[in-house]
């Protein structure tokens, strides 16, 4: 165990093992095959879940995977990262007095089969001669480009990073989704005829004007901005949470992890950072949050998971200063917080108590306090809504022919992979309607 903890590859290996064929069949048989099933309603992409599960039960795995792909091209990622407790499994009719069907695990089983057998969707639609530029190869962009390809359009994705996949590749901890799964998913999208150009930064290497000239439509799916600044002395020594996770995925062997780590924040990303630190050998990991467990933005199951990992929680504490020793972190000074009346977010406002400073010792501090609003909107002069890119009901921005999808438009609701995938799918259908002036088929195989 000790050596496993020290080996980053082992410590961060995908946590849930794949279901065995037998376990999958047993679980699939347990599904009641509800009519007009609530799991399908709860899934943002409305995968016909009972249908794909029954196909597992009859050992028609190719058909099962095809059923998932029909509604969601990123089924492999979603099977791993979806908060199923809040979505499909949370709506399972067996949940009330029994145990919901393990829909996520079953979907992964079908998607693993598809990956191992290269049983991917095949594009049959006739080419429309239309071309669309997609900015960002994250889940929204990949989904949109893939769906456009299925409708017969030529989609080209411009991605500033070296690898495609966006947060699936860089931001989801390997415990949940190994890098290879995300990359293979991108390759599958490419196999549909989508071109992914990596290492090209929108706004720098290529401009909107250029793209508008070359393509029939442009889709913005660039996600969110950087982590906001805390505005406290010593912040420059604090490690950015997303970069911490990225390093754990792309170069785990060289990721430096302290013995006594503090993670600032209490969202899902913060739990992920704390988990990595813990798994890679930190003796003590403390999450510092200015409100309480009732206001935490991470999912309940993530909180439970964190506690089981041995992560400690320090609530009602607001960081005020990083203490340094020879230029290295020595601790985090915080103020005690009392909760006041609700603020703009609807949650009780944290009110630091003057003179209540105390110090939490730490030799490494990571912050995961959300992401800034997308900067793109301002750069391109697009209309915004609460800082996000404003779009109409068909994902078109204030500029005709320019669409936006994914986290960069997520004014309300949870920013999640599956929501991004659905955006991509719906936007593709809208663009298709726009470009060919004909309704897109409801379901494309």
């Amino acid at each position: 165990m000790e050596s496993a903890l020290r080996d980053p590859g082992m410590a961060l290996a995908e946590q849930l093992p794949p279901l065995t064929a037998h376990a999958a069949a047993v679980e699939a048989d347990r599904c009641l095959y509800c009519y007009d099933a609530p799991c399908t309603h709860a899934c943002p992409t409305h995968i016909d879940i009972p249908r794909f599960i029954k196909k597992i039960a009859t050992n028609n795995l190719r058909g099962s995977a095809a059923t998932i792909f029909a509604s969601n091209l990123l089924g492999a990622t979603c099977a791993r990262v979806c908060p199923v407790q809040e979505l499909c499994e949370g709506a399972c009719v067996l949940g009330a007095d029994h145990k919901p069907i393990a829909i996520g695990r079953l979907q992964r089983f079908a998607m693993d089969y598809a990956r191992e057998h290269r049983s991917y969707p095949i594009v049959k639609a006739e080419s429309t001669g239309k071309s669309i530029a997609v900015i960002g190869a994250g889940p929204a962009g990949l989904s949109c480009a893939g769906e456009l390809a299925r409708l017969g359009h030529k989609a080209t994705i411009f991605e500033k990073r070296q690898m495609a996949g966006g947060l699936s590749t860089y931001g989801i901890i390997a415990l949940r989704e190994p890098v290879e799964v995300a990359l293979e998913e991108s390759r599958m999208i490419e196999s549909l005829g989508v071109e992914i150009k990596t290492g090209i930064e929108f706004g720098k290497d290529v401009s909107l004007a250029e793209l508008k000239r070359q393509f029939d439509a442009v889709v913005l799916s660039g996600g969110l901005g950087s982590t906001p600044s805390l505005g406290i002395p010593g912040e420059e020594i604090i490690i950015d949470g997303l970069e911490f996770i990225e390093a754990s995925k792309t170069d785990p062997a060289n990721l430096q992890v302290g013995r006594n780590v503090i993670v600032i924040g209490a969202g899902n990303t913060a739990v992920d950072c704390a988990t990595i630190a813990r798994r890679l050998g930190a003796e003590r990991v403390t999450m510092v949050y200015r409100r309480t467990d009732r206001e935490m933005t991470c999912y309940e199951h993530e909180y439970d998971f964190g506690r089981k990992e041995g992560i400690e929680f320090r609530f009602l504490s607001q960081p005020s200063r990083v203490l340094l020793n020879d230029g290295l972190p020595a601790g985090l000074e915080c103020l005690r917080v009392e909760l006041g009346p609700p603020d703009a977010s609807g949650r009780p406002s944290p009110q630091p108590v003057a003179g209540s400073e105390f110090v939490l010792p730490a030799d490494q501090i990571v912050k995961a306090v959300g992401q800034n609003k997308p900067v793109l909107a301002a750069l391109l002069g697009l209309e915004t809504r609460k800082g996000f890119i404003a779009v109409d009901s068909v994902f078109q921005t204030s500029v005709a022919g320019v669409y936006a999808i994914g986290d960069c438009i997520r004014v309300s609701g949870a920013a999640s992979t599956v929501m991004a995938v659905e955006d991509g799918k719906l936007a593709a259908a809208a663009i298709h309607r726009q470009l060919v002036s004909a309704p897109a088929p409801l379901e494309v195989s």
Partner: protein
Amino acid sequence: MADLRINFAGIKSPNPFWLASAPPTNSGAQVHKAFEAGWGGAVWKTIGAPVLNVSNRYGAWHHGRQRMLAINNVELISDRPIEINLREIAEVKREWPDRAVIVSAMVDSKPEAWREIVERIEDTGADGIELNYGCPHGMSERGMGSAIGQVPEYCERITRWVMEAATIPVIMKLTPNITNIVLPARAGVAAGANALSLINTINSIVGVDLDTLELTPSIGGKGGHGGYAGPAVKPIALNMLASLGTDEIVSKSGIPISGMGGIATWQDAAQFLLLGASSLQVCTAVMHYGYRIIEDLCDGLSNWMDEKGFKTIPEVVGHSLHRVSEFKNLDLSYRAVARIDRAKCIKCNLCYVACNDTAHQCIDLISPQGGVVEPSSYDVRSNGKREAVETRPQPQVREPDCVGCRLCYNVCPVDECIAMVEVPSGRSAVTWSELSQDQTPVTEDWEAMKDYRQKVGIDIH
């Protein structure tokens, strides 16, 4: 505590459960072990003519992950030398005097062959003989087993030969592979058999292997029909048992019937008793789980009998036979409708699709606001467990339109969620038999039927 003892045609056993003549009673060591576990009796695996067996002799029908809802076999009668069988039978009977030891036999259709086997069986001290007229595979090709059982005249003739020779009770075992089970049963009565038993296995092919395209099981690339048994055949066995119990000749003769065919639990056992079996035989369930199942067979039956106030097995036997009827005697005015318990309903909506696709289209989906809605009528952007659960419509029966077909009741996965509730039809009781007698045109002419329906108020939608 209920008294489970039986006296079946003079054969006594401490409980009604006997192992059927089959692989579980192939040897003295096995039967000894079974008696230690508590079995009341055993019908020894059929002895008789020399045979050789094949590999892959058992097939099975599985459903989902439920294994062996039925077994299918091409195993022949005992392939152990007859002398060894007879010696072991004698040893077991000596050691277990209170248990029923019955020997199944099957020989060539010659009087001397049957006389000889009867005498050799009697020499062992066995309590009875069962005549195997049912084996549907292999032996039937040699003019034995079901080749006899399918021809009532043969059954009668051979049973007469046996009855002339036998001094211990003789049970004639019937094959279900026949159009009318009553005819061979009557033949048994006519020949003076002491008892009947049924059912033997049913002709069957279990399936085809979708990789090799050979039959399953494949015996060197070939296969064929085998004898089908196990839980899946129980309803067929119950029907045949009830057919005998309601046949005038068979029931008036008072001949006892040993029932078998898919008994796996005490509930199955109680049902066989209620429909007229006075001893019970079990095979497939034992082949699935071993001899140990006898414990709950006895325990469960005993508890149920206590609960129902039955003190002895004979009190149970045939108790439900008077409920067996023919369609023509059913009350056409009896009306029941399905009612869904809203509190128990989990909204799987399986009743809805079953009713609307395949039955009588009388279940609606009702939204939480109270209106009738179509399936999948939510907006494409709606998602999440809360929206899915809180807006999920619930099935509700339109009772005036419900014909009481009972399909929804059968598909509902929740116990006691859908009830078939008797409602007054407003019509006086009448059977088809009465109609055809008193109002013949109604049963022969659609126009007359239309008038009749209008008169009594039967609306077919």
